[in-house]
């Protein structure tokens, strides 16, 4: 299949999926943290959360990826000698990719989560406090479970954008399917064939995600009356 390059592209697809899922895990953690900061009554915490969301969402993914990967590597190697470490430090593209995409999409998710948190009636959190729960307990036991249903549509959107953004990590040398396709295209002089194949695989991934998340939304909305117009 595909002049014998089918297998390597499938390998790359696997790496793309790993990259997307790991980045999403990091993004969810950072998004929750960011949202918790932004809804915090402490002025400096909410300011910090707002700055994170605004700055990251104002800069293109590609620039952030190049900045964090090349700039981060450069910074680490400028700072390391000061701490008494003299070897050159090479950052693994997979780790860097997961960190970068997680950091970027954490900012987008913090916006989605913040909106969802704000849509939960105030009485819910107050009731938790009245029961003597601590702030963290109220957050994880009362707010987060209710927030999930409200956040799924925005989350779906972010997941699709993140999946597609993984293609950019090939620029910094991660051998994902985009990277493999580029190699195959250069070797066989059939760029259209290989990029079309990759486009097809991405379309498959986004289609399956869309169906799965739609099912999840239905599950989480059990017991909530849908409004008919």
């Amino acid at each position, binding site marked *: 299949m595909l002049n014998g390059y089918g297998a390597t592209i499938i390998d790359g697809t696997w790496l793309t999926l790993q990259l997307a899922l790991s980045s999403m895990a990091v993004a969810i953690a950072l998004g929750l943290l960011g949202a918790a900061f932004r809804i915090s009554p402490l002025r400096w915490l909410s300011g910090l959360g707002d700055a994170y969301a605004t*700055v990251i969402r*104002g*800069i*293109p*993914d*590609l*620039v*952030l990826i*190049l*900045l964090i990967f*090349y*700039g981060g*590597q*450069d*910074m680490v190697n*400028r700072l390391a000698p000061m701490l008494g470490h003299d070897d050159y430090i090479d950052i693994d593209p997979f780790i860097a990719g997961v960190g970068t995409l997680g950091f970027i999409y954490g900012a987008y998710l913090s916006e989605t989560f913040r909106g969802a948190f704000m849509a939960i009636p105030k009485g819910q959190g107050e009731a938790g406090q009245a029961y003597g729960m601590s702030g963290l307990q109220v957050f994880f036991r009362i707010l987060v479970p209710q927030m999930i249903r409200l956040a799924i549509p925005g989350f779906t959107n972010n997941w*699709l954008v993140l999946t*597609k*953004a*993984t*293609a*950019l990590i090939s*620029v910094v040398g991660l051998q994902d399917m*985009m990277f493999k396709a*580029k190699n195959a*295209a250069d070797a066989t*002089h*059939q*760029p*259209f*064939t290989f*990029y*079309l194949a*990759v*486009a097809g695989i*991405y*379309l498959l991934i*986004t*289609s399956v995600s869309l169906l799965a998340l739609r099912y999840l939304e239905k599950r989480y909305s059990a017991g909530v009356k849908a409004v008919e117009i």
Partner: protein
Amino acid sequence: MIFDYNVVLDSLPLYFSGVLVTLKLLAISLAFGLLLAVPLALMRISKQAAVNFPAWLYTYVIRGTPMMVQLFLIYYGLAQFEAVRASFLWPYLSSATVCACLAFALNTSAYTAEILAGSLKATPHGEIEAAKAMGMSRFTFYRRILLPSALRRALPQYSNEVIMMLHTTSLASMVTLVDITGAARTVNSQYYMPFEAFVTAGLFYLGLTFILVRLFRLAEHRWLAYLAPRKH
């Protein structure tokens, strides 16, 4: 020295010419994208499957694949076919600027079409009934009532799309164009100062994003004032 200002100051002219390239790409692709999006959106609200389906498929495929793949398909991919290379279009299709604009315009047209379709579907019934009661023809109704009303209401979402497009244009640096990102990559390869080079590019994009947000707020104030919450 942790941050070398001299490198940034020396390369400012390159960055400013990059800003011009970025803005040119953005303006051209948005203009053609919007032009294509209006008929697509009208197709997407049609009840006839034969009209709706092709537009649905187009927006679904474009929105389901990465912009980078689309750009590479057009810029690198088309050259695979002898027929394309022999055609009179080749001088255009072998130009990176034309390919980038084409790819960006096709991409934004799909997203914009979905935004417009959503806004068209949300047209208040009263506006449509009033137009019918006035005896307007279908064309007059579209031109005077449906489109102006829907385009206005799409403005807040369209502003997001425009900012996404501003960020998307950074991909042009991958097909040899020297936009803001391309300028940063040039600076990086000249001085090997990646941190300085890309932070500067990031600041330029941040500045442009804030300007666009501001402009759209003014536009909303001008065209959507009738939907704003009452101030008293």
